[in-house]
């Protein structure tokens, strides 16, 4: 990182008005050429894909600036190289996303059927079986976590925006930030350590999982609701006060409804964030093969845990377990994407900007 470099060569001699420019088509043409060469290398010479991608990147990095250097001069060449670098960085980030989507869909579709969604694993050793118990478990645990987190999160945000002054508010703001960084497995250990005191060291149940997820969810809810409440114009609060309305009624009847769409978006994104959490549930809810709808009693499966164990303990023969793992991963992926989509649509329709 050369953040302090001040270009010293900002002289007019180098960027003359009559200086040569590369034609507009030069960039796309170079890219097409490199891609075609790379494809040929992969198909004909059977070169390993990562190597080809790496070499292609290098080729782009060299050719475009080199061309520019010849025609446009050093500073332009430098600029082109940066453009290539920055664009490549972005494209590189999209690669894993693309490959994730493709891999999960390809592998998951094999067992993503009605049977998978409507049966549990009772008595299944090899082929067949489904994730009903895991889907229901995920919905119950995440639902409970939402019920715990949303009121606490919203009220904390209300405190920070509407009431918070002085040291307590500053401390809470800082700690909410720190709480966003708590490793998920620590949240699971916390729930375990808490409930083990009352129920002994073999405690495993759904509510424990909900508590662990809440530790992860509350700070996310607080942050997004806080940002939404700050967007509510002060004039509306004043209009309400001027009608002789008390502060708490102003918050409940004016401020919160005005921010409602943004709050809904934030809560949905928070749910999407925790619904895929595996580590804490591994510790405190455990895993089971049968449908359990009672979060107060006994082990409860969930989609991430089901995915994890279907892969690590696949049964005999192992293919069927791995197939179920991918199908569960696909189910989870679809749920998370759906939640993200819902959040986008809510914020788009009701016109409230999200915090991102």
């Amino acid at each position, binding site marked *: 990182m050369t*953040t302090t*470099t001040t*270009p010293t060569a*900002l002289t007019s001699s180098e960027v003359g008005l009559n200086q040569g420019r590369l034609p507009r088509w030069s960039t796309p043409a170079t890219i097409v050429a490199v891609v075609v060469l790379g494809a040929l290398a992969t198909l004909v010479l059977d070169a*390993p*894909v990562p190597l080809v991608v790496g070499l292609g990147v290098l080729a782009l990095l060299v050719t475009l600036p080199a061309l520019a250097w010849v025609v446009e001069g050093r500073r332009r060449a*430098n600029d082109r*190289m*940066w*453009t290539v670098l*920055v664009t490549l*960085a972005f494209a*590189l*980030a*999209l690669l*894993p*996303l693309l*490959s*994730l989507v493709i891999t*999960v869909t390809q592998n998951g579709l094999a067992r993503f059927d009605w049977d998978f969604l409507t049966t549990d694993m009772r008595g299944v050793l090899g082929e067949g079986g489904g994730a009903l118990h895991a889907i229901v478990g995920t919905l119950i645990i995440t639902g409970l976590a939402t019920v715990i987190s949303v*009121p*606490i999160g*919203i*009220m*904390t945000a209300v*405190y*920070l925006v509407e009431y*918070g002054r002085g040291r*307590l508010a500053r401390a809470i703001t800082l700690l909410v*930030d*720190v*709480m966003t*960084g708590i*490793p*998920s*497995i620590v949240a699971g*250990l916390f729930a*375990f350590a*808490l409930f083990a005191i009352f129920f002994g*060291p*073999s405690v495993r149940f759904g509510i424990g999982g909900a508590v662990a997820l809440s530790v992860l969810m509350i700070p*996310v809810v607080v942050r*997004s609701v806080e*940002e939404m409440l700050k967007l509510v114009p002060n004039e509306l609060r004043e209009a309400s006060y001027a009608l002789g309305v008390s502060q*708490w009624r102003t918050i409940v009847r004016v401020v919160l409804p005005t921010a409602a769409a943004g709050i809904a978006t934030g809560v949905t994104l928070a749910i999407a964030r925790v*619904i*895929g959490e*595996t*580590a804490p549930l*591994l*510790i405190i809810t*455990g895993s089971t093969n049968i449908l359990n709808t009672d979060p107060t009693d006994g082990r409860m499966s969930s989609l*991430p845990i089901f*995915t*994890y164990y279907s892969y690590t303990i696949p049964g005999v023969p192992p293919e069927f377990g791995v197939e179920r793992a991918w199908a569960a*991963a696909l189910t989870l*992926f679809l749920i*998370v*994407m759906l939640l993200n989509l819902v959040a986008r649509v809510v914020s788009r329709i009701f016109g409230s900007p999200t915090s*991102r």
Partner: protein
Amino acid sequence: MTTPATTQVGGPLDQGPPAEPRIGSRNRTGDKIFSGTATAAGITILVTLAGIAAFLLYEGFPALVAPAEDVPGGEGFWPYVQPLLFGTVLAAVIALVIAAPLSIGIALFISHYAPRRVAAPLGYLVDLLAAVPSVVYGLWGIFFLAPQLVPVFRWLEQTLGFLPFFAGPTSATGRTMLTAGIVLAVMILPIMSGVNREVFLQTPRLQEEAALALGATRSEMIRMTVLPFARSGMVSGAMLGLGRALGETLAVALVLSPAAVISFNLIGSTNSSTIAANIALNFPESSGLAVNTLIATGLVLFTLTFVVNFIARAVVARRKDFSGANA
């Protein structure tokens, strides 16, 4: 009251609720209850964080004071946690080294290179990476990424084998420390590029225009104004990413095949585990003092991430009106 007399518009309507004749000190119980509830919710946060530290300490304490031979591994707690701590930091540092330059590039692309119309949807695509569940990352790492990387590792061993990092012999499965680091890098890209994007966009427009007016090219303008302006933001973004990489569990647990060693060899088949992955792998089958030991390692991890996050937030806090918490 169907036709209000026009002379009386807005005047006292006899049928209306009787206005209070005198200004009184009305009962403000509602306000007190509501603000009390809000304050209590805020204090819940404090209590929860204190509770996490307290309960982990309470349940982990037996392992800290137990005789060395009773702790798993038979050599006491600190020898047990050292290789794990090493693996945790190593994986996170690899992730950070890969993700830091990439996240700056991604953020610059969205803030200064992409056409304005597509910038927001592109940013949303990067954010989607944060939404993918970690167990899915784990499967992807094992089945897709690791096999793809094996030839690259071979090449690294042959070409750069004189470095301890690439000493080899190359793992046949590709499930190595470097693979885990790459998966972690992908996972922390969204939060880091999100923070960077936010600070880049805050560069004062006037400064940028001043640089352009001097005849700077776009890259020169970025190096003159955007990057120096965003330095502390980039540092704290990196710390946030580091904190997340330190605590990530399942992706590492699935990708690595761990052993209790300290090794700088990034592409071999013998790798250190991380604290979080070690807990996930061993907790379900543990009982007695082994559970206390795992909780104590959790306490070590909690302390580590707390410190890293605290530093990151302290750096951020010096910039007002800025929050990267939701990236």
